Structures are given as structure tokens and as C-alpha cells.
């Protein structure tokens, strides 16, 4: 076999490379299509995060804030979804709140896609699905499955080392695009830091009393099925965890580590008056032990590798053939949020937040997620 090349073969090979690049680009650009989020009955207003920090306006980081106002005045709660767009129970819970929740007292603010640019790409070598489809009685809804981090198209190159601005903490360079390492944010910082600042500013300017940031973690990670609370929020979180245990929902409680900087539960608690909470559910589609990675894994959480790992005692959550379906993970988040509102109203009766219509774990497990997704007009 001869491998002799010349200018003609160079031209042909380059042409083939161009065609492949074009086709690949088409498949990447699919991720630029916005998700459809339907205004539910409780939504009074939609604002943009850029209204709170002008440096975000007209950038890929500016994202929608849904405001649900109750008829009676009270406190203000903020729910953050999509801080990590590869953790679907977080943003799906936020979307279900937008489409179903009806505050009676106080206000519920929801940012469903906190790091919007993270929804526009996937991490190299993670082989994530680009999205998933939820069946409903009237058809299907499609949602993107993004990346943990800001899209490099919007923030590149990464430094060799990411130095957290206000603490000097050093992390590996790619963490510079991790929104949950960028708080409280910086006006003259990178896009991720600007998004973080926008959220911090929103909390300060609107006097948000309670902030809940929704996440998922891989099942081999110690902080999972857990509430992480800033010290000021600890008494409230302890009550919530106890009530959830009584309801049969097994949930852990962790204090926000003082030396781990840039995270919502640490910086929002330190830099604003809000009570800062972060919650985690178990998502095998972001873990290192998972088998085949596809849409089904993101939706069902069924994975033989994790069943095996559980038998080996390597996991921090129970794991069997039933997996951890998205319904269960969203249900856990929403039930916990509901419990937070109840306990918050008891502990802070001068500024309660009372919300009806939140789908709870048992509702979602019975009816499916699709039952709580509205039909776009």
C-alpha cells in the first residue's frame, strides 16, 4: 500500500476536513436554540438579570428572572436553577415552580437558567446528551442538557489557575467558568463573575430573604441528597431536614464549609442578608462510574455500574435497579422547597412566604413530570 501524498491529496483531505467541520458545527449549533419556559398562573412579571447589573446587558450571560407575586405582602424567596446546566433536576424544579406555583403571601423569584451560556454547549469528553424529552398528555416538551460551565465561546481562554478574586483561593483553571465558584462576583471580572454579581446584586437590591440554589451531584460524591446551609440558615435547615425525615425523605444536612469559597451557600450568606441554602440530588449522568451515557440515563438514572458500586459500598446514596429517575429528583427538590417555605414562615412570621400549587414528590412520582408542564401557546 502506498501512502504517497501530493498537493492534490492535500487539497482533497482538507476539503473533507472542512465538510466534517461544517457538519459538526451544525450539530453544535443545535444547542443555541432557547428552551421554552411557559408563564404559569402565578407569574406576574419577567425581568432580566441585566437590570440588576448593567454589565450583563446584551451579553450571553443575561438571563430571565420570573417573579411570582402573591396577593398579600410578605417575604421574598429566590430559587436558582441551572447554576450547573448539566444537573437537570435543578433547572427542571425551577421550571416546574414557574409553571405551577401560586404564591399566596409574599413573593417567589425564580431564575431557571442561572448560567444560561452553560446551556449552549456540552463538556468535551463527558458525552452528555444534548437534551431530553418529557412526554405530556398533549405532546412533548424538550429541554437542553448543558455543561457544568460557561461556554468557552463566551469566555476563553481559561487561566492556568483560577484564583477566586475575593479570597485568593486557587482552583484548577477550568473552574474559572464554574458559576458556583464565582460568587459574590465582580463588576470588572469575566462573564461568569458578572453573572454571579448580577445574582448577588438582585438579592441585595430586592431584599431577598431566602435563597435556594438547586444542584445535583454524582452518587459517589459525599455531599448528596443533602441540604448545605450557611450558618445563619442552619436552624431553619435543621428543622426542614427533620420534617423531611419524618415524611420519609432521607436527607442529609451539611454546614457550608468556611474555607470553600465562591459557592452560593458561602458567599451569598456572607455578602448579603439572605439565608443561603444549596440542595443536592443524585444524578448518575454526571458521575464517573456510569455506564452508557445517553438521554435515558439522564431521565431514569438507571445504571448497572452504579448498582455494582453500591454493592461495593462506594456510594453515598442507596442505589438499586430502579435508579434515581428525574421525577424522584425533582420531587425531592420541590418537596424540600415547600418545606423551607413552611418552616421559614414559622421562624420569621413577620415576612412569610406561602406558596400553593408546588408539585410534591408523591404527586410527581404518581403523575409524571409531564403532568406539570404546560402547553406552549
Amino acid at each position: 500500500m502506498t501512502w504517497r501524498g501530493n498537493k492534490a491529496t492535500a487539497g482533497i483531505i482538507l476539503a473533507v476536513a472542512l465538510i466534517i467541520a461544517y457538519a459538526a458545527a451544525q450539530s453544535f449549533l443545535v444547542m443555541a436554540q432557547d428552551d421554552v419556559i411557559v408563564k404559569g398562573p402565578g407569574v406576574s412579571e419577567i425581568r432580566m438579570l441585566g437590570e440588576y447589573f448593567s454589565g450583563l446587558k446584551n451579553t450571553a450571560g443575561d438571563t430571565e428572572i420570573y417573579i411570582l407575586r402573591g396577593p398579600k405582602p410578605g417575604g421574598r424567596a429566590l430559587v436558582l436553577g441551572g447554576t450547573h446546566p448539566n444537573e437537570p433536576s435543578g433547572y427542571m424544579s425551577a421550571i416546574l415552580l414557574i409553571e405551577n406555583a401560586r404564591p399566596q403571601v409574599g413573593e417567589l423569584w425564580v431564575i431557571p437558567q442561572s448560567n444560561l451560556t452553560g446551556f449552549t454547549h456540552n463538556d468535551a469528553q463527558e458525552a452528555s446528551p444534548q437534551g431530553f424529552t418529557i412526554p405530556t398528555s398533549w405532546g412533548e416538551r424538550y429541554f437542553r442538557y448543558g455543561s457544568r460551565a460557561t461556554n468557552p465561546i463566551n469566555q476563553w481562554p481559561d487561566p492556568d489557575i483560577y484564583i477566586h478574586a475575593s479570597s485568593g483561593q486557587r482552583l484548577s483553571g477550568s473552574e474559572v467558568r464554574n458559576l458556583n465558584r464565582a460568587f459574590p462576583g465582580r463588576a470588572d471580572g469575566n462573564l461568569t463573575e458578572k453573572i454571579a454579581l448580577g445574582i448577588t446584586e438582585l438579592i441585595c437590591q430586592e431584599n431577598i430573604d431566602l435563597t435556594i440554589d438547586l444542584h445535583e451531584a454524582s452518587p459517589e460524591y459525599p455531599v448528596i441528597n443533602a441540604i448545605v446551609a450557611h450558618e445563619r440558615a442552619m436552624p431553619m435547615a435543621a428543622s426542614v431536614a427533620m420534617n423531611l425525615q419524618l415524611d420519609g425523605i432521607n436527607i442529609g444536612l451539611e454546614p457550608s464549609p468556611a474555607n470553600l469559597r465562591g459557592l452560593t451557600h458561602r458567599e451569598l450568606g456572607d455578602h448579603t442578608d439572605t439565608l443561603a441554602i444549596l440542595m443536592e440530588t443524585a444524578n448518575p449522568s454526571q458521575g464517573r462510574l456510569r455506564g452508557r451515557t445517553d438521554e435515558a440515563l439522564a431521565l431514569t438514572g438507571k445504571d448497572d455500574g452504579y448498582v455494582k458500586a453500591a454493592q461495593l459500598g462506594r456510594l453515598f446514596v442507596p442505589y438499586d435497579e430502579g435508579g434515581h429517575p428525574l421525577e424522584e429528583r425533582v420531587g425531592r427538590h420541590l418537596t424540600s422547597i415547600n418545606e423551607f417555605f413552611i418552616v421559614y414562615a414559622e421562624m420569621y412570621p413577620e415576612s412569610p412566604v406561602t406558596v400553593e400549587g408546588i408539585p410534591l414528590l408523591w404527586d410527581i412520582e404518581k403523575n409524571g413530570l409531564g403532568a406539570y408542564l404546560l402547553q406552549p401557546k
Partner: protein
Amino acid sequence: MLNAILHSATSPREVIALGTELLALVVIIVIFVVGSFAVKLPIGLAMVAAAMGGTLVSGLGIPLRHLVEGGFGYIDTILVIATAMIFMKVIQQSGTLDFISREIIIRYYKKPALLLMLLMLLAMFPGMITGSSTAAVLSTGAIVAMVLINLGIPKVETAAIIAMGGLLGMIAPPVNVPVMIIGGGVDMPYVGFTLPLLVMTLPAAFFTVLFLGLKHCRDLDVEAIMGRLPEVPEVSGFLLLSPLLVVGILMVATQALPGIVPALGMPLIFILGIITAIFTSKRVRPFEACASAIKDALPVMGILVGIGMIIQVMTLTGVRGLIVIGALSLPSVLLYLGIATSIPLFGTISAYGSASVLGVPFLLALLGGNEIIVGSALSLIASIGDLMPPTALAGIFAAQVVGIDNYFIVLRKCIIPALVVILIGIFFVIYSKHFGFLIL
């Protein structure tokens, strides 16, 4: 390990699932071996073929999106390699390398052991600052190589020394990217690692250079050595050194003064060094330096794109999970053996990849020890991945720097130092609890 997985599979469904993942793994390996050895494809192309084979047997067709996306995993590394290679060509052309080599020998030839240890530190330095073994091998590694060869140390030993210097430099503080990657997976901040990493890397580094080099430079004949040295251009030493000074100062300044000096990144720092060389030396021919540097670097850049594809395909098809679960399935007595073998072996793909894919689960499996010591030790073991063919970033570039085509003869010289490194790592993993005092 695979045997262990198959025997432990319990339900029939599990066996079937393991079956397709195992099949994919076997197909990937077979196509890679046949492609690179029998068909004599370049390694990068053999990897593309292997990745496609893996998706085809998994019933996924040829998922173009995944293949190209995987190739993006090392795009920043590709830029570092390209610019570092150009920088090395340029300081070769300018005479900088010859000049430094001559100066070091004139000053220190009387104390060979001290000279060798200092040279090792010099070879490690860029790796310590940047966390990249490639940057080390292609910058001061090239200088050290020239000195060692001029001292009479054979090329093969020289290549082994600068390869080990590069990868130990990557692990030595202040910047150790593999441990940051491992830490990132368990939310462990990069604090308190300085002394543990020094204690682990320096003995290994000094052992390596003395073990491989000392016997060749006992009775140095300085006259003969000086006669062998190439002529240095008739310009001032400062001008000759300036490209290296620019790169060194910027490397240190961006790390030491964050917020004041912007994070330029290795590629830009190398480019500034290249520009300095072009302006300070008439002997530099920029176009040819770039063209020949990229020609030398292309096979490795191709390997990096190919590896990215393979990792993405391994993740997609479940092979990655199969490997991790297999490693974690080892009984506890064998766990240490598993760490000592699987982390360097996975390093055939890359040291960073190995730290992420296996380092994190192993650290989680070892919770209860001292996390900082265990993480440091795992990163030390992961560094050996940069010697493992086919990628062997540190090794292949070290061979290239001294002009050896066959990397395997260099690898053979690295075996004993590498074993010492792995043993040091395992020692600290097992006795991590006793070394908590190193954390300041």
C-alpha cells in the same frame, strides 16, 4: 481486573450490559493496535479509527458530534505544545541554548553531583510554575539536555532525565494541575499542598538524576568538553538570555502577582518569548522556525485530538465506567496495587485524564486517610502517565529534544525512576495519616 468484573456480575442483565461495554473496550484496543502497528497509521489516526470502532459495535453508528466534541478536550494543551515547540526552535536558532550550556559547565563542572541536582531543579522549574510537563521539557528541559549531553551523559539517559524532570516538575508545587483536578472532584481547595508535594517530588527528582547521570560524569575532562561545545554567537549574554528571561519572569509574575499581572496563559507567554528572540537575534528565521516546530508537534497534536475522541467514546459507550468500577472492585488488599497499576496505565491516555477519571474515585475510596496527602500522592502516581506510550507527552518530547526517534529506548531508562515514584506515592497513600504534620 476485567476478570474480576465479569465474575462479580450477578444478574443476567448486568452480564449483557457488561458484555457490550467490554466488547467496545476490546474493539477499541484491537483496532488501535492493528491500526498503529500492522497498518502503520500515525497514532492519532489509529485512535480515530478505534473510537469509531467503539461506537459502531455499541450500535451508535458514527456520532460525528461526539467525535469532534471529544477532540476539543485538549485544545488548550495543543496551543501550549505548539507555542512551546516554536519557542524551543527559536532559542535553538538564536544560540541561547548553546550559551547557557557553556556557562553552566564552566561554572560548576568541579562538583558534578551538585551540578546534576541543580540541573534537575532547572528542568523541573517551568513544570512547577505552569503545571505542564510539556512546557518544562520544551523550555529549560532543552537547556538541561544540552548541558547533560555536553557533560558526556548519553542521549538516552539525558532524555530520561528531562522527561522525569518535566513530570516531577508538573507535580511539584506551587502549581500541580492533576491534584487540582482531583481536588475539584471532591471540593478540596488547593491549600496546604506545598510541603507534601515537595517532600514527595524532590527525593524522586534527585534520585533520578543521580541514578541516571552521576556515573557518566565522575572524572570530567573540561578541556575536551569545552572543545565539543558549539560556538556561541558574538553578542552579549543578556541579549541571548532575554527570551528566556521574558518567559521566566512572566511565568512567575502571573502566578505571584495575580490581579496585577493579567493571567496571560502559557501560549501567550511563549509567544512573547518568541517575539523577544526575533528582535534580539539576527539568527532567528521565524517562518522556518514555526513551520518546523509545527511539523515536529503535529503527531502529538494529532494524538491529543485522537485521545479526546477515545475518551468521549469510552464515556459514551460506558467503557470509562467499566474501567473505573473494575478498579474500585479490587479487594482492599489489592486496592493499592490497583492504584499503582491502573492510574499509570490509564495515563497512556493522559496524566490529566487519569487524575480525573481514576484519581477522584480512588480518593473517595480512600476517605478516612489524610485527603491532602492522599491527593498529592495520587497526583504523583498519575504523573507517570506522561511517560506511558502512545501519548507519553513528557517522554516523546524529551526524546525529540535530544534527537532520538525511538521513544521506547528512553522509556526503558525511565523504568526504575518511575517505579521509585510509584513506590513513594503508594507509601504516602498507605501512611497518609502519619504525614498530616506536613500540611501547614
